[in-house]
């Protein structure tokens, strides 16, 4: 049994709308779209044109800056349309999908043990599966030439209404194991697994024969204990010029399929959660499937916000959008556009706050239906010590934010900008009394560092 790391600072937002552990199957949609904006810092260069027929796993576009990266089709069919946005930026590539019989680009299978590291990288790049491997700092698609310090996989999600990854992994244990084997090979054995501490030893899905005991870490405590950034911080903190890679467990499964079946099969299990859904559950869908199609008649009446991801870090999305490349979780919550009369004065039994100035703190087990209301206006920074309570890292959050606002690169470096990503500061933003957009500032800081490189 590996080491246990206890996270004390953090908070679990308890929301209504947890998914039932049932996986609904969905028919393949008419249209599947590939959206280049899903990938950070990628400038697409098209490899197909409208009217072409493509196979699943065939390259749709490459990156102008990093031509080795290939972005492949999740489905076979005909290129229906290339939708452009302003300045002729490519917004989406719509594919008229084959409904019944998907044609795959066939890659060799079951040859993992014989592959050299270079062959392995090449296979991953060719199939588009490489794009599942991302790096910290900056949360970009990994650079195949780089030598990462380690590769991290967080096998649990601690965010609000998070999908149960153990449940999802257990659907395809073999593929998970194969994927993990490939990654161990890729990272020269230096793969770290972050597992939830549940007190009953190693979870059944954890192939402990692949990972040495010292690389298995158990995390105990509230969100963000499942964030891969927190795992990296506690296990192998990033210094200047160091890189680590990370992969989401569900993407490990897809990588596993590539080596066991020889195909890029991009269907995944997505958790549909949130108080605005009539039936929160899991659903098997294809990357690029229309959101409208996924939610269908599951939406309750009223004005809602659909989020790809969780309520803290996810991206707001419309019914007309498509399931993004990295989405494993969809949350739907009510919009909160109603002004509240004397909102600052009332006892607030149904309001959630980490401070104990609302009476709801007397009911710690209560689950909430939170809407998107900001509950106040943006102000200058006044309260202190709030962020520290929810950031389980050896970092002074406010001072880091101030260094970013002052564009003081050296200070940012000294205060640990390399170790953070926006999502790690999401709870800070949630608790902020002054309603400051913390994640946006962190994003700006990271961009600034990136520009300096």
């Amino acid at each position, binding site marked *: 049994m590996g080491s246990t790391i206890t996270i004390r600072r953090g908070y679990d937002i308890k929301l209504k709308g947890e998914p039932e552990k049932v996986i609904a199957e969905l028919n393949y949609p008419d249209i599947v779209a590939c959206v280049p904006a899903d990938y950070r810092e990628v400038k697409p260069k098209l490899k197909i044109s409208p009217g072409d027929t493509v196979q699943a796993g065939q390259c749709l576009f490459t990156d102008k800056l990093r031509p080795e990266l290939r972005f492949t089709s999740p489905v076979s069919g005909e290129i229906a349309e290339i939708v452009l946005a302003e300045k002729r930026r490519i917004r989406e590539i719509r594919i008229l999908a084959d409904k019944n019989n998907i044609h795959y680009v066939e890659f060799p299978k079951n040859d993992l043990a014989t592959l050299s590291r270079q062959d392995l990288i090449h296979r991953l790049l060719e199939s588009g599966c490489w794009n599942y491997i991302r790096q910290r700092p900056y949360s970009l698609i990994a650079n195949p030439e780089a030598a990462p310090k380690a590769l991290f996989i967080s096998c649990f999600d601690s965010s609000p209404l998070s999908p149960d990854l153990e449940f999802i992994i257990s659907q395809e244990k073999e593929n998970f194991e194969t994927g993990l084997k490939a990654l161990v090979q890729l990272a020269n054995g230096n793969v770290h697994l972050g597992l939830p501490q549940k007190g009953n030893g190693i979870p059944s899905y954890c192939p402990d024969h692949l990972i040495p005991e010292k690389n298995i870490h158990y995390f105990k405590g509230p969100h963000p204990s499942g964030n891969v950034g927190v795992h990296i911080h506690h296990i192998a903190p990033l*210094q200047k010029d160091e890189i680590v890679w990370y992969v989401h467990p569900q993407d490990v499964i897809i990588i596993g399929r590539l080596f066991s079946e020889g195909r890029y099969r991009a269907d995944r299990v997505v958790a549909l959660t949130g108080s605005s859904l009539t039936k929160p559950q899991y659903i098997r869908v294809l990357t690029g499937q229309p959101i409208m199609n996924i939610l269908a008649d599951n939406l309750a009446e009223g004005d809602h916000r659909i989020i790809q991801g969780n309520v803290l870090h996810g991206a707001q999305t419309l019914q007309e959008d498509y399931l993004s490349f990295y989405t494993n979780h969809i949350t739907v919550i009510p919009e909160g556009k109603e*002004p509240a009369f004397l909102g600052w004065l009332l006892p607030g039994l149904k309001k959630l706050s*980490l401070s104990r100035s609302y009476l709801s703190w007397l009911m710690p087990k209560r689950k909430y239906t939170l809407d998107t209301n900001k509950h*106040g206006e943006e102000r200058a920074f*006044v309260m202190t010590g709030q962020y520290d309570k929810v950031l389980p890292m050896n970092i002074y959050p406010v001072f880091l934010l101030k260094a970013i606002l002052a564009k003081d690169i050296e200070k940012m470096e000294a205060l640990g900008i390399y170790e953070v990503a926006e999502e790690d500061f999401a709870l800070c933003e949630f608790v902020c009394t002054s309603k400051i957009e913390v994640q946006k500032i962190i994003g700006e800081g990271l961009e600034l560092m990136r520009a300096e490189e």
Partner: protein
Amino acid sequence: MKPLLRLVDKFKPHFAKGAKYGKFHPAFEALETFLFTPGDTTANGVHVRDAMDLKRTMMTVIIAILPTLFFGIWNVGYQHYLAYSMEMSHMDYILFGLQKVLPIVIVSYAVGLGVEFVFAVAKGHSISEGYLVTGLLIPLILPVTIPLWMVAISAIFCTLLGKEIFGGTGMNFMNPALLARVFLFFAFPAFMSGDIWTDLSPEVGHAIVDAYSGATNLVTFDTDYTQLQTAADMFWGFEQGSIGETSVFACLIGALILIVSGVGSWQIILSVFIGAGLTGLFFNSVAPADIPTHAMHTPFYFHWLMGGFAFGAVYMATDPVSAAHTESGKWIYGLLIGALIVVLRIFNPAYPEAVMLIILLLNVFAPLIDHMVVQRHIQKRLRRAQQ
């Protein structure tokens, strides 16, 4: 509340930016958001927000201050009738107190908020809630006999020079309420020391009793500490002093509210008390044995009870903007405040207002304390990197 909301919505377009009264948008907005927490939704980043905002924070602080205000009102009446040796009911104490204290509170709020409104309209930024607390703190740290026009200029001084020139709430580096007081203290010393602590408005047919002395415990303490009032009197607050500062008990209720709600920093409150206690003990051990009435002999807990110590520790030192911002910084800041208050009290009888001066002094040093804490943190990180 729909009709009210409709009314607000009806007037809203007239105050929109660019409309006829667009200039007064901040003032309208302040009023509107006072009635209704706006229906703004999250746009970037998190999709849900904690229900706490700055208005609620300030409201919680005000609730925490109320016990001292209520006791202060009662005590103003009580001290007044005590000086005339008149047996009156509690109701009479309260009525007399209200009559004297309310005008000060009203002037403080009206003038201070007026300055904030003018600034907001001139600069086009929204009105922050900081003054809601400052406006109540100012009356509580003034003697009841203060002329109202002095309250007004002190409110203007602290809002203008203490806060707005730095950019408003959150940007100031000194506690605004204490600045108001320190301004009066140095500008009008005659009204801030001496026999001013009890309202001695004449009572027909009564004369001030011979035993009456206008000196507060802080003055007594420097000449002969054994002549102090009893610890119980000082704890409950049956003594002369600024309107709200006398009752340690009321301050402790406030401290409880601040700490439980998470709005005030318990680290600061506790460390100020610890700092004063330890320093008091230290002076006890080195006190000159041949002068038994020397202030150094004062039992350490008397420092907690005398003057504005508790009030300062609970409501003034904890101001999150002007205090230290880091966790360990808060401890250093609090301990130093506590310790220096006792040092100044004992060794500088000319300034019985040690609490006010020391908190302001440490306000100035707080950024330096934070800087040192952060530098240490950075060095630790570097050391870890080199390993």
